[in-house]
């Protein structure tokens, strides 16, 4: 008898359960763009979703853009998104957003609302890659791209895979960005994306970075400035350090390395010591050095490479110090190395930071020269 009652209770409870939302009612949002709406002063949100249809077969068969966008306006960000819901052909599913693009005007006003929405609401996710763009984000989402079927995935692949080969851009995921910006002194870098036209075709270009302080966009960094930052943050896997040396152009590819930033107290002064250790191989040498017989050549190359890296990092640090914003993570390192000193200086960091001296020590070793040692001088 008891068992029968239990089964009836179970079945009755099951009948009162929540509604299900089967997957075909959803449409995935892959790219999310935020702009300011000039007319009302609220937000304009653009959602890019893949086209579901054309036979329901695989999406990789056709070349060309397979996405469509909807936009919505509203006074707050959430209202704007809900407005876009009505215009989309299925319920937008926001848990799989790959890329978020923030328009310049939103960035300058402040991204506090966006951050709170993404952190709090379970409908959103904190894994997308963040980019700021000059101009309006909707241009990028609405652009006709020739070759990318799903532009958001190509952006993600560029950012994760290409970063091994090209250090001239910086990209970060939302959760990591939050970790950086919520630590004192609330300065962090975000990726930058632009839409450029080459030969009449639209191409998405990811280069440089954008600077945020206290949740507001305050500037951009160009691609040359960002190389040093990538070295500082250990974000390179292999990087080309190309420079003229003795009339030679050498390209070195870095295979592995480590950068350590440490605050050091010397006397009364606070000095940051940056140790860069890397090993790499030669990719290309333009003239004809005698690598086979001249053992000191590689050593000289090591030193010159170290100097070049040093100059990159110096440029970055100087730029940050000139802007009086510590987005290099120096304060965080101080907090975790000398907590008492940090407690004393944390209120005044914006003044202390521009005056910090930086000592850079590099230890580069070039291990290989590729397939060949020397190229015959016949060319």
């Amino acid at each position, binding site marked *: 008898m008891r068992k029968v009652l239990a089964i009836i209770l179970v079945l009755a409870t099951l009948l009162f359960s929540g509604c299900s*939302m*089967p997957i075909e009612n959803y449409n995935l949002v892959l790219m999310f763009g935020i702009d300011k709406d000039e007319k009302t002063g609220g937000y304009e949100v653009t959602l890019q979703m893949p086209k579901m249809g054309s036979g*329901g077969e*695989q999406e990789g068969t056709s070349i060309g853009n397979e996405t469509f966008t909807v936009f919505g306006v509203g006074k707050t960000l959430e209202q704007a998104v809900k407005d876009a819901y009505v215009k989309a052909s299925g319920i937008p599913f926001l848990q799989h957003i790959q890329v978020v693009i923030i328009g310049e005007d939103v960035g300058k006003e402040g991204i506090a609302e966006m951050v709170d929405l993404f952190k709090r609401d379970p409908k959103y996710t904190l894994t997308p890659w963040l980019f700021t763009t000059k101009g309006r984000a909707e241009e990028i989402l609405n652009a006709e791209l020739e070759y990318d079927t799903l532009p958001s995935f190509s952006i993600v692949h560029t950012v994760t895979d290409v970063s091994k080969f090209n250090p001239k851009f910086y990209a970060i995921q939302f959760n990591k960005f939050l970790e950086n910006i919520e630590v004192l002194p609330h300065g962090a870098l975000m990726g930058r994306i632009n839409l450029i036209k080459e030969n009449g075709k639209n191409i998405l270009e990811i280069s440089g970075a954008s600077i945020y302080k206290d949740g507001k966009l305050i500037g951009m960094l160009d691609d040359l400035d960002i190389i040093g930052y990538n070295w500082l943050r250990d974000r390179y896997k292999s990087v080309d350090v190309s420079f003229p040396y003795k009339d030679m152009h050498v390209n070195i590819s870095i295979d592995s390395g480590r950068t350590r930033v440490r605050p050091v107290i010397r006397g009364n002064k606070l000095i940051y010591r940056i140790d860069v250790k890397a090993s790499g191989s030669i990719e290309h040498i333009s003239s004809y050095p005698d690598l086979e017989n001249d053992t000191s050549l590689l050593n000289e190359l090591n030193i010159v490479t170290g100097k070049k890296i040093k100059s990159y990092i110096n440029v970055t640090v100087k730029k940050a110090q000139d802007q009086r914003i510590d987005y290099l993570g120096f304060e965080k390192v101080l907090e975790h190395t000398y907590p008492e000193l940090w407690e004393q200086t944390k209120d005044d960091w914006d003044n202390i930071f521009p005056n910090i001296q930086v000592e850079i020590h590099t230890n580069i070793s070039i291990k290989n020269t590729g397939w060949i040692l020397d190229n015959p001088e016949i060319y």
Partner: protein
Amino acid sequence: MSLFNKLFSNKDNGNKQDKKQQEQKLKIDKSVDKNIDNVKSTLNGNFDVITRKVSLGGKTDQYVVLAYLDGMVDKTVLNQSILRPIVLKPVDDEKFRKVGPLQYVEEFMITANDVSEVDKFSDCIDDIFNGCTIVFVDGCDKALVCDTKGWKERSIDEPGNEAIAMGPHMGFNETLLTNVTMIRRYIRDPNLHFEPMTIGRSGKTDVVIAFIDGIADDNIVNEVKKRIQQIDIDAVIDSSYIAELISDAPLSPFATLQSTERPDKVVANILEGKVAIFVDSTPVVLVAPFLFWEFIQSPDDYYENSIISSGVRVLRVLSLFIAVFLPGFYISIVSFNQEMIPTRFILSLMSGRLFVPFSPFAEVFLMMVLIEILREAGIHFPGTIGQTISIVGALAVGQSAVSAGLVSPFVVIIISVTTLASYAVPSYTASYMMRFLPYPVLIVSALLGIYGFAWCMVALLIHIASLRSFGIPYLTPVAPFRLIDNKDTLLRMPRWLMKYRPSFINAENKKRMATKKKGE
């Protein structure tokens, strides 16, 4: 079923009572004619009851009557070793007077090998049903029973659904003696006991309990005997009747008694200290107690390399999980918790589901029902059309359903993987059970999402944890955890490491082999 009843039981209930009383009162009469009448009346004058009256060695005043059931006796033995000597051999009068007619016939005339005396009439009838020939001698109130069993039996073939690749290919058949002999050939230990019992009011089936004295747990042996003796049923057609009646949890989808048709499995179990139950007229032998981890064990594992067999066992556990939980997991992810799948995955899922007219739950349920129909059809179809049905099924289920837009290709894959996984387990009872288990999981997951899925897993876990097989918890030796016994659950450790018998069988003799190191 009714045929058997008609042959072996009496038609009228009222007469049955009288006849039973009469039977018990019947004695072996000194006059053979009276005996013939008694036999014929007890057996209701059936056409296969043969009585043959012959003279005793040519004597004109003493007769001998043989009674047997046609079809159950070996006629060669009957004719050559019993009839012939009785009829043709002249009687030595001196010895005849000295020992008496019955003993003379038994010791000096019959040349059959298994002869014994019997003095109750009911025993005679029982023995006639066992294929023996009864010899009634004039003037004696006892009779002779000669074993002349000779009915036709099936050859010793490997059972179809428990085949292995390499190893012994014997299988039990329907004769109890043959089965018992096969066990004897493996275990030539005088401590191997076979204890006979009879169950069933009108069936009177022979049941034999086999165990090795000193290795088996006495508690389990006594418990098995006690439970079997308490069975009150009219006939036992298959050992599963007994299994259902003595099992601890007969309604649970998980069996607590093992049924197998392979002698090597039974022998291995007896050597571990378990008890085997043989039932006449069925090749399926029961083994008690039976634990959960034996679902994934197959004789294959013990005949092949131990490392690879361990990997195969892990694969079987994985297919157990897949067979029960995969449809439910798919439904809970697709209907409720779409954020839990990687993004690329969800894109292909969605594009596959675009033109399907059903909700995900209906789609999965429809496919599962279709597969069940296919399964049943495959079992009952005549052999000649069997091949065609598999092709039709594959076409209908796979290709056409997808192209017609009825189901998405993903669901077809999931359901076929589920079905295949349910057969990857080497036990037929297990695969039978796993046909049913995915359905409740599916329904609860479809209503409550990932919470419902977790709920089902926990409910199933509790159910298995609460089962006992003859007092031993079902999930031993993983829980309650005994490190020593885990050599043979998920992994199959090499032979030289399995020195002791399972510790949950409490017996004195636990050593399988001398505990010397390999190579000493």
